[in-house]
């Protein structure tokens, strides 16, 4: 009994320590490696040099990643939120609910490279769009909808189902209840899910390779421009053996960006508590 207890406890502590050490380890490693490369110019300039990427910076890639990430977060977040609200509060038919849930889980389990291929087939080949910001955004949106919807569904169920019915029992309609009670109540979880969704989109490489990320491009002016993206740039830098130093720098920028977005979402979610 005692021994079991000790083993169990130490196992918990060790797992906790491993998680913390690995997280900080990765972060500090890239911080250490990247900080030498990351200067103001690195952030604000386009890649240059021969071969391309050995000099200059990653500005267009930052903008490309931000734009595609935020846009798909916006569309996917809205669609995901609506899906989860439908599932939790409007779908009284248990069977339909089950089918939709299975569909979402299936979609969430599809490897991202396949989502990329799907985006390429439908958007580029089928609809004749060029490789562009919009194709990337739509592909990423498809990828993150189930991711966001499933998380939000869980949050809504946990925070608001009873309160929702309580509000209805006061004679207040569903729509008003959702806007004035459910969403403010679950805002924290909604924002965290959204943040994770955006980060997931910004980190994805496979889906954007086929649909719009290119080796060199400017900051996109319109939706139909091709983009640079940090993960793809990173991939090219390493894969073509262009510059491992610059790759560390790029990785560092990506990590910081992702961290910032998570923090911002967290702050918006906790706005009322402040």
């Amino acid at each position, binding site marked *: 009994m005692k021994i079991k207890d000790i083993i169990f406890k130490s196992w918990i502590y060790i797992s906790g320590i491993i998680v913390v050490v690995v997280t900080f380890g990765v972060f500090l490693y890239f911080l250490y490696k990247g900080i030498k490369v990351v200067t103001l110019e690195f952030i604000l300039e386009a890649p240059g040099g021969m071969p391309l990427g050995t000099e200059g910076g990653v500005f267009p890639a930052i903008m490309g990643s931000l734009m595609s990430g935020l846009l798909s977060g916006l569309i996917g977040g809205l669609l995901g939120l609506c899906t989860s609200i439908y599932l939790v509060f409007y779908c*009284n038919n248990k069977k339909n609910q089950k089918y939709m849930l299975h569909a979402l889980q299936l979609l969430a389990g599809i490897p991202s490279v396949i989502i990329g291929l799907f985006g390429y087939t439908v958007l580029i080949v089928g609809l004749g769009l060029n490789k562009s910001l919009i194709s990337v955004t739509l592909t990423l949106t498809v990828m993150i909808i189930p991711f966001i919807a499933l998380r939000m569904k869980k949050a809504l169920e946990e925070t608001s189902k*009873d309160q929702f019915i*309580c509000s*209805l*029992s006061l*004679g207040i*309609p569903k729509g008003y209840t959702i806007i004035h*009670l459910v969403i403010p*109540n679950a805002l924290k979880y909604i924002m965290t899910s959204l943040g994770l969704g955006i980060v997931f989109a910004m980190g994805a490489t496979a889906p954007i390779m086929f649909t719009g990320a290119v080796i060199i491009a400017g900051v996109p002016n319109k939706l139909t421009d091709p983009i640079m993206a940090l993960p793809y740039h990173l991939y090219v830098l390493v894969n073509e053996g262009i510059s491992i130093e610059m790759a560390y720098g790029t990785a560092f920028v990506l990590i910081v960006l992702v961290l910032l977005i998570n923090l911002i979402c967290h702050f918006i979610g906790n706005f009322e508590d402040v």
Partner: protein
Amino acid sequence: MKEIVLKTEDLCVSYGQKKILKKINTLFEKNKITAIIGPSGCGKSTFLKSLNRTVEEYGGNMEGKIHLNNVNIMDMPLQNLRKSVGMVFQLPIVFPFSIYNNMIYAPKYFGEKKEKLNDIVIKNLKKTGLYDEVKDNLKMMATKLSGGQQQRLAIARCLTVNPEIILLDEPCSALDIKNTANIENMLLELKNEYTIIIVTHNLSQAKRIADNVIFMDEGQIIEEGNQNEMFDNPVNVRTKEYLMYMRN
């Protein structure tokens, strides 16, 4: 002369294929407390929830008729029905706002004038005896109240839309003796103004507060009547057995 506010006619409720309530016919008297008792799973909560059609929000399907002041509730706008027939749940449900905002949540939706909101809050908090306890802290988060206070807030909030009938589903089962006594006394006060229907597992509670009692089993009403008669001289064998069982 009894005045009847609510009457059910062959009320049946089912969840999918599962029939829960089978032909419930009964009356509820105005300004009385009616207690619904019966073994777990017999359909008490389902019955209560069907009286303001919240059962439909859980996926239940209702058949038969329910008359509220001689109007079939199926023909009433849902909003009016639910304003007239308020509901309090087993676990206290407070919205994650301040006490004040909990109280004005519904009146605000129904377009009460700003000047009147304060009065509504104070009047209804007083009815539940909560006002003196929280009058200096109306801006406090309602979730910081104790369990008993939260339940009284839930009742007060239900009163803000001026219901005629209040449905309570085991409102004291999560509370201690003192808070339970508090709520019981309050209900005895409230019945002068409202009609109260309460589900309870606690026979002595039914004895303390109820005028009428309905005993249910397996989705049907087995016996109903005046509290004293029911508890002292039950007619039906099943009622007798249940009362015996609960007393031991």
